């Protein structure tokens, strides 16, 4: 190989490399990582797609987790290895993923969404204030049980932060009222067990006045078990999230109401905020570093309107 040709090659490679870096600095690669593959994230995805379409100099990747911290670590490592500029993640196990989030924060701009990891070096959190959501559910319970009564609560796992916070919100709301919690049952996201837990609660506590489901599939599980027991109307139901069956139950009056989050906004606001911060504008990050997206209470009177909106968002 002649000296000239070598020099030309070097020049060429420098050009290519600088070309690449220049391209990277103009178009930002952003990623949105979920904790699992629930329907919820289909809506969040639409929000990220909207942001992607609106922002010219941004590409957005959407990655579904499988409910494990290991899968998230693999996803984050892969993204960092391919030079992602910013990512928003819903950590499965925030307390023990701090190290991973901090590692990622050294190489890219890191947000948490849906579930926060306040001890990590994440720049900002975008998501629900689950304690406030719990309080809304507590208010629904008090409204359904003006005379007071006993309630039982159902959830997949109690060591999940959102479950803890929602439960705390409910407890805050019913404190001082005549409503008392008799039990909290978990099902490890096994939906057969979720329904069996409710059926068995109706047997062991025949006087229970209301049942609350903290995770999206708990609403339908409660509804089906109460229906099988012939106790619709007699046992009041309060749910979270917007499962189709839950909304049908709200519409029919079998469920008092459901507290819903706005996953679309998680997706949209995470991506737009990541993009503006990467451009150097940090004004969108509040002093507490938490952007709360309010939860809504869906009852019989506004369920149709909500459903129409949801159908549009899901693109069905």
């Amino acid at each position, binding site marked *: 190989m002649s000296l000239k040709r070598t020099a030309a090659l070097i020049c060429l490679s420098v050009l290519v490399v600088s070309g690449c870096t220049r391209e990277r600095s103009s178009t930002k690669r952003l990623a949105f990582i979920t904790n*699992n*593959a*629930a*329907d919820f*994230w*289909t809506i969040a995805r639409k929000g990220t797609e909207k942001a992607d379409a609106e922002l010219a100099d941004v590409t957005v990747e959407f990655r*579904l987790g*499988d*409910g494990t911290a290991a899968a998230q670590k693999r996803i984050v490592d892969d993204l960092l290895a391919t030079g992602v500029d910013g990512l928003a993640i819903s950590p499965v196990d925030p307390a023990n993923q701090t190290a991973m989030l901090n590692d990622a924060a050294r190489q890219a701009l890191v947000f948490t969404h849906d579930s926060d990891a306040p001890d990590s070096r994440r720049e900002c959190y975008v998501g629900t204030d689950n304690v406030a959501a719990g309080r809304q559910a507590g208010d629904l319970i008090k409204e359904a049980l003006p005379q007071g009564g006993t309630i039982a609560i159902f959830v997949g796992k*109690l060591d999940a932060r959102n479950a803890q916070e929602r439960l705390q919100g409910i407890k805050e709301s019913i404190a001082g009222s005549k409503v008392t919690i008799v*039990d*909290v*049952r*978990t*099902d490890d*996201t*096994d*939906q*057969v*067990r*979720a*329904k*069996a*837990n409710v*059926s*068995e*609660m*109706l*047997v*062991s506590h*025949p006087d229970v006045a209301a049942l609350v489901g903290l995770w999206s*599939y708990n609403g*339908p*599980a409660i509804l*089906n078990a109460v229906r*099988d*027991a012939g106790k619709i109307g007699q046992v009041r139901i309060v749910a979270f999230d917007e*499962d*189709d*069956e839950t909304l*049908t139950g709200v519409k029919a009056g079998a469920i008092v109401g459901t507290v819903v989050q706005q996953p679309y906004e998680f997706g949209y606001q995470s991506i737009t905020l990541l993009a503006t911060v990467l451009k150097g504008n940090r004004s969108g990050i509040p002093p507490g570093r938490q952007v709360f997206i309010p939860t809504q209470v869906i009852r019989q009177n506004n369920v149709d309107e909500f459903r129409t909106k949801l159908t549009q968002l899901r693109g069905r």
Partner: protein
Amino acid sequence: MKKELATFVLLVVLCAIVAALNPRFISLANLQNTARLIGAFGIFSVGLGMVIITGGIDLSVGSAFALLGVLLAMMLTEWHIAWPVAVLLTIALGALLGAFHGLLITRLGLQPFIVTLCGLLLYRGLARFIADDETKGFGDAAGFQALQRLATGSVVHVPTPFVALVAVSTVMWVVLHRSVYGRHLFATGRNEIAARYSGINPRRVIVIAYVILGVLTGIAAIVFAFYTNSVSPSSHGNFFELYGIAAAVLGGCSLRGGEGSIIGILLGTTLLQVLQNLVNLLGIPSSLNFAVMGGVILVGVVGDQVWQRRSARAPAG
């Protein structure tokens, strides 16, 4: 018979204790709830027991529930296939998966653990992909209410899944304990080579066992799908194969093959469901659910082993 007796005694003692602590245990509503679950879990546990008797195993049952459940929901609510056809297709697909496992195991000589571990991953992934990671529900079952009633209803207060289990286990009892095939199955499980030398076709015997499991998985998939009324592809049926394996082992099936009985598997299934029921009825924290199950299974297995050793020594000494 002794193994079944040990499980039976354990079950009776447990039921007596729970009924004494909370009389609602024997209320009609609770018996119905528990019978429904025993029915659903029993149907596939019987099939899994047959496979275990051949010396095999199937780890893919839970994932198959997700795949078959998602397809059933889509056939009924999106493709609007007549429900009897959808039911037959679901069971046929279950049988096909069973035949696929059986052929890989017998023709290629692959280990059942590996084949069905791959099935566990493959079917879960397919279920999620086909459903586009969305929960597939039956809603108000418009157009197939008859099927919903059949899967979730009762016959004179007895839940239909339990009735189905009684029918399935009667047939399988005849097949396993009174038919030539049953004898071949035990012989193959005990010693495949010896079975072959005595004129049995072990390959055929094994493939048939996996197909039987496939058919029963298909039936159970329909029951589970209607029990929850919706199928979330990422979590539906997770780990259910372990309930089946535990029930079979509790009921006296040996994981080495060649041993087991239908009565034993039924007792094992019942014990597992009663254990979960008692956790809720006695207000034991949900967090202890698995610990209670694991502890009692261990007591059962240890008790059985001690009993066997003693009875083995007794005639000699």
